[in-house]
């Protein structure tokens, strides 16, 4: 059986959830599929309060925003959710296939599709980086913030971007010791408010340092770090071994764009957005008219901007389907103004420069 649906959202993170809400409010029937055990994407693992303004739920903790959005979604009768459902293919006739619970094969034929699949983590290629005890940052959050499991006793964080800084702090909240945050760049990549919390807790943020090797029998036992010069070369004599049982890799993300490729959307490589990203217009519509994009799949940014991009895309999709939205222009402009003001900082400027290559 093919499910004929007006709107299919692939990915139940902040972008997908907010897009679904926008369309539901405009009276559109929405089906959302997500491969996680729980809806909410990375939001439900976040214990810190968000920035920005009211639109992005500033001052509210990430997991609470996730709960809020979930409750709102399920209050709509015309919302249908398929959990533990992985989109597996996009076909020429517009059919999206998906696998539910690893058993049931589903087919959807939507009139309009949102691809809000998020991102995948970049790995770290050094000797013994595959030993148990080396985790992607997301996995550390999953263990400690969703399931209450201590990921380790003594952690070493690799990467001082927002994710590295935030999770280093979350590790402390979970009761794990953090030896250091190691960052190859000469400066801290994330917001200083997060960095300050780490520093106040007495954890060194070692910029211009990198991890070169991991050792351990069956699991991680220690790691070597070294200072790097301005050409990223290790400085001899600065090597140091640190005892650790948990190496958390937070060295960046790359957009999860398999479905966009499969669909044949025009893509461009934009380093400032994390990799290959879809060309889109101001409605967040890709070069195939019934495909929209939002969130990290459209370029690595943060949850607050994913919320706003989701709102823009959801509104655009409802409009694409011909829903009556009296104040469409007003809302569209409001979300863009919010997004632009959110992007006005130094990190946002980088994003804006990247967007020049793909936003028409």
């Amino acid at each position: 059986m093919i499910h004929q649906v007006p709107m299919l959202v692939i990915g139940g993170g902040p972008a997908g959830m907010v897009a679904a809400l926008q369309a539901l409010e405009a009276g559109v029937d929405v089906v959302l599929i997500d491969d996680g055990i729980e809806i909410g994407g990375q939001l439900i693992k976040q214990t810190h309060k968000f920035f920005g303004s009211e639109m992005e739920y500033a001052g509210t903790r990430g997991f609470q925003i996730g709960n809020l959005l979930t409750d709102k979604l399920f209050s709509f009768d015309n919302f249908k959710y398929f959990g533990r459902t992985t989109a597996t293919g996009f076909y020429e006739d517009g059919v999206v296939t998906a696998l539910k619970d690893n058993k049931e094969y589903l087919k959807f034929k939507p009139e309009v599709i949102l691809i809000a699949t998020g991102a995948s983590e970049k790995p770290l290629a050094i000797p013994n980086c595959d030993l148990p005890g080396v985790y992607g940052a997301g996995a550390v959050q999953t263990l400690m913030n969703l399931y209450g499991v201590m990921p380790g006793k003594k952690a070493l964080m690799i990467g001082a971007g927002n994710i590295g800084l935030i999770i280093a702090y979350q590790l402390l909240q979970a009761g794990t010791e953090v030896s250091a945050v190691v960052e190859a760049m000469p400066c801290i990549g994330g917001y200083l408010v997060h960095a300050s919390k780490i520093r106040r807790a007495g954890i060194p943020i070692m910029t211009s340092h990198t991890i070169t090797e991991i050792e351990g029998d069956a699991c991680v036992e220690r790691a070597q770090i070294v200072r790097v010069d301005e050409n990223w070369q290790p400085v001899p004599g600065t090597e140091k071994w640190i005892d650790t049982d948990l190496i958390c890799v937070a060295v960046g993300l790359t957009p999860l764009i398999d479905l966009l490729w499969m669909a044949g959307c025009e893509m461009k490589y934009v380093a400032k957005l994390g990799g290959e990203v879809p060309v889109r217009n101001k409605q967040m519509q890709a070069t195939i008219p019934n495909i929209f994009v939002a969130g990290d799949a459209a370029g690595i940014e943060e949850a607050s901007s994913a919320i706003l991009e989701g709102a823009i895309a959801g509104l655009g999709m409802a409009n694409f389907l011909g829903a009556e939205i009296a104040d469409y222009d007003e809302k569209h402009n409001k979300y863009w103004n919010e997004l632009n003001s959110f992007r006005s900082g130094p990190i946002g400027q980088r994003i804006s420069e990247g967007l020049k290559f793909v936003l028409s």
Partner: protein
Amino acid sequence: MRIKNHPILKFEFGRKVKFTFEGKEMYGYEGEPIGAALHDNGVMVLRQSIKLKRPRGFFCAIGHCSSCLMEVDGESNVRTCVEPLKEGMVVKLQKGKGTLK
């Protein structure tokens, strides 16, 4: 090991259930990923790499990396980071690529 006191989060655990890992009895909470329950029980090595037999553990937690493929109730290649734990599950280390049931 579970987190004892968290300053922000209150964990709502499911029903406590018994399962086995390599024949050894263990406990976890119903509905949580099998991999999380194993981690809580101190099991770090979830599989061996096929060629070089290197130990592999919990890595991505979203079912993408295949580092946690195990044999569960006789079925091979179960992604234990995204498979909910149930009462009485029989979890084993898988040999090589596993076998079809």
